[in-house]
């Protein structure tokens, strides 16, 4: 990892939600071009980690730091983080009644472009781009005309998240349980979208309970999170081992942290 340029560095991060400490000293560095997977049992804090990076309100950082592109982002508003290239694919994408998908995505892309000193995208160019990404995610053309996520199936919502990833083209993609609730076809489409996004200038953090998605998106590093701490790190073979032996195995052998 030391060979690649760091995109984000998480340093001894302690986070609490409503007085309860969820993350208890996370250290994690992600370099450009890398794919990291955070695995862990329910309640281990893995979704918290993804959400804290994206700036979701309601979490208190007690100590430690998150350094992104060389500066601390702890005090930075979520929309500013998004404009700087941090993208969170939600575990539970939110429905926005009355807000059309087209309108929402246009507002998002223009906000990000303006934040980076670019002009708003012309409608024709945006339509072209959106159509390209829609085809990539094999989404029904009707969905982009409908209210955001309203009446979408679970799989359509997740595909819509990856469509947004493809459209907004961030630097860091945080995928929070994107695989949960997906059938095999949707998983294939979603993974394809993520693999197309993957490049030497980007980084990906996959938060998942199951190894399944990692069959499609091969991680460079796998970290196991238990009770707010990374208890083990390794390469993609660690995911296989976990799938075989279960989380109890890492809990038992906790403390044998291998820093790649």
């Amino acid at each position, binding site marked *: 990892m030391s060979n690649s340029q760091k995109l984000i560095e998480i340093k001894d991060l302690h986070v609490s939600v409503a007085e309860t400490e969820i993350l208890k000293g996370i250290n994690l560095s992600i370099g450009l071009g890398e794919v990291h997977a955070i695995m862990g049992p329910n309640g281990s804090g893995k979704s918290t980690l993804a959400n804290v990076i*994206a*700036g*979701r*309100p*309601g979490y208190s950082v007690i100590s430690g730091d998150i350094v992104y592109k060389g500066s601390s982002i702890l005090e930075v*508003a*979520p*929309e500013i*983080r*998004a*404009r700087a290239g941090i*993208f*969170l694919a*939600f575990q*539970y*994408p*939110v429905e*926005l*009644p*009355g*807000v*059309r998908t087209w*309108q*929402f995505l246009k*507002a*998002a*892309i223009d*906000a*990000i472009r303006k*934040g980076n000193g670019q002009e708003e995208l012309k409608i024709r160019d945006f339509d072209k781009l959106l159509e390209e990404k829609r085809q990539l995610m094999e989404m029904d053309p009707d969905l982009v005309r409908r*209210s955001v996520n309203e009446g979408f199936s679970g799989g359509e919502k997740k595909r819509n998240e990856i469509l*947004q990833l493809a459209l*907004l083209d961030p630097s860091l993609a945080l995928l929070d349980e994107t695989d949960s609730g997906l059938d095999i076809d949707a998983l294939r489409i979603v993974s394809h979208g993520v693999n197309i996004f993957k490049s030497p200038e980007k980084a990906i953090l996959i938060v998942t309970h199951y190894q399944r998605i990692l069959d499609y998106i091969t991680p460079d590093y796998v970290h196991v999170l238990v009770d707010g701490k990374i208890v083990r790190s390794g390469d993609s073979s660690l995911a296989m081992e976990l799938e075989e032996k279960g989380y109890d195995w890492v809990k038992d052998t906790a403390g044998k942290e291998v820093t790649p």
Partner: protein
Amino acid sequence: MQEASLVLNKYEEDFDNLSSISPEWSSNLRNKAMDTFREIGFPVRRKGNEKWKYTNARPIANIEYSSAKFEEIDLDDIKLIAPWHESWINLLFVNGHYQETFPGSLSTNIQISNMASNDLVANLTSNVGGIMDYSDDGFAALNTAFMSDGPIITVPEGENSGIVINLIFFNQGLSDTVNYPRVLITTGGNSIVSVIENYVGGSGDQTFTNSVSEIYVGEDATVNHYRLMNETDDTYDVGYGRVRIDTNGAFNSRSFFRGCGIGRYDLNVSIEGENASCDLQGLYFTNDAQHMDNFINIDHVRPNCQSNLFYKGILAGRSRAVFGGTVLVRKEAQKTNSVQSDKNLILSPHAEVDSKPALFIYADDVKCAHGATAGNIDADTVFYMRSRGIDLEAASRLIIYGFAGEIIDKVEIPELRSYLAESFLTSLPSHKFEF
């Protein structure tokens, strides 16, 4: 008490003046309604009065209103504050009095007459007052006693040219005046008509608008009814819609309310024929110290009918809204399918809505649902948008527009839809949710 009788004296004086110029055919109806008004007065007692539980009529009862006089208005000024399209039949009433705007050459068979006319044939006038029961309602009695100008719209059997009739009731804002818009729409079998009723106020002093619309939907007929209320903060507006639907008839209502000191719309739809339906949707926006009360009753009299009642409210400032929706399913009204919902978006901690959806079912084979919600935008929604780079203010705007758009988008007249999208949405406050 002495004060109250003084106020009524003013109405008595105006009533006598009106009686001297009113057409012969209406005098009986007007006299009887005035008697009722003398007897029951305004509904100022709220205790034990479910109909007026959340709205205080006393400020209206306390003012000595006199009947507003006609003044000619520049049409260009009207076009700035109300929807207008050259392809529509546009009729303007200023302070309750008709201003000649319509050239008179109708390209359809729809007949439009003025109630103030003396030489109307009996089959036109016999339906006036036939649907609005004012016997226990002082405001409705008052309107009936004081009706003068007002359109009688008669849609003949089979008429389906798609014509839009645009009624503009402009209240100029003359100090302490009252105006009494009155509408009657009757439709023949198999006809379709769209009617827009606008209640708009000019800037000005304390005024009172007291309106009644009676609508009869014939067999297999469809009435698309739009009601836009856009009065000023200094206006009190108490309006009534009374609708009867015959077999296979459909009444589709889209109502939009904003800006009014005290506003109340009492809509009562009686479904009296089989396989008939009503779809009532509304959007109310209140700000500052405004008060808006929607009081809606749907009466399922016959079997195999459908009703949909869907209202949304946006509340800001210290404003208050009331939603009272009651669906009655009578014993005979089997296989009724009825849905009722009222959703409110509350933008300020000082705003308040009293939402009371109610359902009374006396039939045993029906499908009915009702519900109400009131809330601020939830934090997840705003974070979702911010995580896509959209700032708080833009996110709030998208959410509010989206909330209102759900009703506006269903307006089927394109020119009216874009008018509402522009005028209604831009009147909403720029708002920033705090999280």
